[in-house]
């Protein structure tokens, strides 16, 4: 076969957003030879787009805040389906992980006393989100990037990993290609951390960047790891609606955190009907369903959304607290948000489901394979609270880095079979060799339409089944793809592999959605509108690859110890 490079490390981290960077920093700090593999250039990963803030019970603004309350808010937001161990570590460790960023040079917005300022967000009892205006993700990724490049990590940019390699049960490496040259590359490693983010590009309207094609989910699945709770995908309540070109781009929850009000075409503040107590700062699943319902029932804005208005806070305040939003609407939609309302509608934003991991070390069910950040499942249960993803990737990035470095320590590198690698290479080159076949761009658009239509905010058995049937057809069509051009930086070719990943995660989403016959968090079944707390609320969905097909099963959740469950009964 054609020649390829080989690199050998103790630990390789696939994905260079917040979780991947934090994991690589920690792994390297533990003394492991660490590689950080970026699908794009360093610093461009999806974390850069996070806006509103990072949730941590620092108690700088609301002094009553503590980890117990953050833990309870997270579990309640997740409808108690969360991995309690993860939610516990997350609540306890987030403050130190945020302060650590400050030690590394981050400049968060300040309180009058000179401490890190915190803002209100949906589902959080207290003002909890450390932030930098509405560009918190950029601040975090730059800080981690800066720390990372001075931490002795080997950074491999614009490299796409396509296959994980096992020796027996154990992960021993990864195979992929350089985007620039199209040449292949093999990484030998004793531990692999997946930090590949989410799956939003399977949908037509999404806030996610192009990299979000479910690579980590699909590679873990193919490697035999279990995925958990894949039916739960978060539709962020407020994406842009108009013009069509920008539909789906995120409108940060900080707009509501800073006092933004939602109204319908009749001028009614409709959240009064759906959650009179928390109103606009209800959890994302509730707000998304409310906006969707208003539009469905004919009370939408001119372009089919709801009105979101923050102009009453005054032009100076809006420009200072929400500068990106001001520019985003000014430049893309000719709308001045300091003078009038925006139009918003739910947009695919975040997958709660993911690779099933242990909270301690983020190890998956495959030895040597770890996962952190959005690609990992369990932490957020049925619905994620805003701000909890940025803290998640810090807390579990660090834990995964520690866990992987400890696991890799003292192990020797396995031989990688030449036939196996040749098989991967042949599979990847196939679209160049096919004399006829489908255009990957066409299939991608068709998949996005299917997911948007059938596996959306509201679901019925009939809809989901139609979606599954259509995904099966797309899987068949995607077996023979044909592309033009050379192997050098060829986006059409890159899409062929990404498409395979998206089809796997789409199928997992749809099959889990079909199986869960209740409504819980972000999973809303019109045919089963109630939550079944006694039975289904105590079961996780488990996806695995069995006998050549996708298997969906359930498994009882791990019950939390009494000292924690007590926290919830004390409330009542």
């Amino acid at each position, binding site marked *: 076969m054609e020649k390829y490079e080989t690199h050998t490390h103790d630990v390789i981290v696939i994905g260079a957003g917040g979780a991947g960077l934090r994991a690589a920093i920690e792994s390297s700090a533990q003394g492991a030879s660490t590689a950080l593999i970026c699908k*794009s*250039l360093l*610093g*461009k*990963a*999806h974390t*850069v*787009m996070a806006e509103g803030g990072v949730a941590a019970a620092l108690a700088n603004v609301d002094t009553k805040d503590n980890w117990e309350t953050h833990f309870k808010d997270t579990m309640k937001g997740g409808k108690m389906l969360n991995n309690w161990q993860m939610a516990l570590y997350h609540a306890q460790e987030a403050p130190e992980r945020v*302060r650590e960023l*400050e*030690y*590394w*040079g981050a*400049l*968060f*917005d*300040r309180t009058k*006393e*000179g*401490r890190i*300022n915190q803002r209100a967000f949906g589902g959080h009892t207290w003002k909890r989100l450390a932030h*930098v205006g509405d*560009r918190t993700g*950029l*601040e975090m990724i*730059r800080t981690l990037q*800066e*720390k990372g*490049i*001075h931490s002795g990590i080997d950074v491999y*940019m614009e490299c796409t990993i396509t296959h994980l390699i096992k020796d027996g049960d154990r992960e021993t490496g990864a195979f992929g290609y350089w985007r*620039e040259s199209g040449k292949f590359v093999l990484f030998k490693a004793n531990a692999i951390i997946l930090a590949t983010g989410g799956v939003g590009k399977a949908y037509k309207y999404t806030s996610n*960047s*192009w*990299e979000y094609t479910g690579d980590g989910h699909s590679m873990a699945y193919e490697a035999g790891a279990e995925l958990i709770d894949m039916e739960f995908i978060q539709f962020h309540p407020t994406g842009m609606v*108009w*013009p*069509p*070109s*920008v539909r789906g*781009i*995120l409108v940060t929850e900080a707009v509501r955190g800073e006092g933004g009000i939602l109204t319908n075409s009749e001028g009614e503040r409709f959240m009064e009907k759906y959650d009179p107590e928390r109103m606009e700062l209800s959890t994302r699943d509730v707000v998304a369903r409310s906006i969707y319902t208003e539009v469905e029932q004919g009370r939408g804005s001119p372009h089919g959304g709801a009105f979101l208005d923050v102009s009453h806070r005054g032009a100076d305040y809006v420009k200072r607290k929400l500068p990106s939003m001001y520019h*985003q609407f000014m*430049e*893309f*939609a000719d709308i001045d948000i300091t003078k009038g309302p925006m139009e918003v509608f739910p947009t695919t934003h975040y997958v709660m489901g993911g690779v099933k991991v242990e909270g301690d070390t983020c190890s998956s069910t495959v030895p040597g394979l770890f996962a952190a950040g959005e690609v990992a499942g369990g932490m957020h249960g049925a619905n994620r609270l805003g701000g909890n993803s940025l803290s998640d990737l810090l807390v579990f990035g660090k834990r995964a880095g520690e866990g992987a470095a400890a696991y890799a320590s003292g192990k020797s590198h396995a031989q990688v079979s030449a036939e196996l690698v040749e098989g991967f290479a042949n599979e990847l080159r196939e679209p160049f060799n096919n004399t006829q076949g489908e*255009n*990957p*761009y*066409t299939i991608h*658009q068709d998949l996005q339409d299917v997911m948007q239509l059938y596996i959306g905010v509201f679901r019925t058995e009939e809809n989901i089944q139609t979606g599954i049937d259509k995904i099966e057809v797309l899987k068949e069509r995607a077996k023979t793809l044909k*592309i033009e*051009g*050379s192997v*050098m*930086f*060829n*986006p*059409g070719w890159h*899409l062929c592999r990404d498409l395979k990943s998206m089809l796997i995660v789409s199928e997992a989403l749809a099959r889990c959605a079909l199986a869960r016959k209740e409504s819980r968090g972000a999973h809303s079944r019109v045919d089963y509108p109630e939550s079944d707390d006694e039975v289904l609320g105590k079961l996780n969905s488990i996806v695995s690859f069995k006998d050549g097909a996708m298997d969906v099963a359930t498994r009882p959740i791990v019950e939390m110890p009494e000292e924690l469950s007590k926290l919830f009964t004390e409330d009542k």
Partner: protein
Amino acid sequence: MSVAKLRVFRGDAQGGEEKEYEVPVDEGMVVLDALFYIQANYDGDLAIRWNCKAAKCGSCSTEINGKPSLACKTRMDTFAEGETITVHPLKAFPVIKDLVTDVSWNYEVSKKIPPFTPAEDTEWIMYQEDVERGQEFRKCIECFMCQDVCHILRDHNRKDAFAGPRFMIKIAEREMHPLDVLDRREFAREEAGVGFCNITKCCTEVCPEDIHITDNGIIPLKERVVDKYYDPLSWLLRKIKGK
């Protein structure tokens, strides 16, 4: 729906030429949408970097009608009816393929800048008015369009001597961090070549984040360097201390 004509550079390090495409224009559409249309309907292998399509990641920097621009932020309705739109790669960096250039030099420069260094007994109290100077520079999305337009890099290719506007503000940001204790003035002068900038402000004009690169970053940095090297008192002190 109208139809726009785009002339897009197709080629690689060995050379190339413009290729013309016709693309239907929808309301609010941006140049990046037009490039997607070309990929899906004409040439699937057209190479362009992009990530967020929301002007937040700085990946899709190109030269549109000769001006460094983010393709995701340049609306098609800013062009006159029938106007031909040219899309080329950034000129200051070597072409890899089509609209993708080799920007790796920027990452090498970035790594050389001494990192944030706090005092050991820092209490981590900072006030909003003190962090705002640094926050302005930290809005940078590393689109490298300021590097592209800077004539020291673009016309004179002095990448050996001048770090470019992007990294001037990175040095300035470290220097202005309220809790940083390191002195980077010698680095700014000797390694980063701050003296090469002659304040034409082209960088500031193309910055998609409206960072006042020259006025708030480079000029204050130059002044600090001048204070160190040309202030008569410090000159005398250096003489006495032999530094």
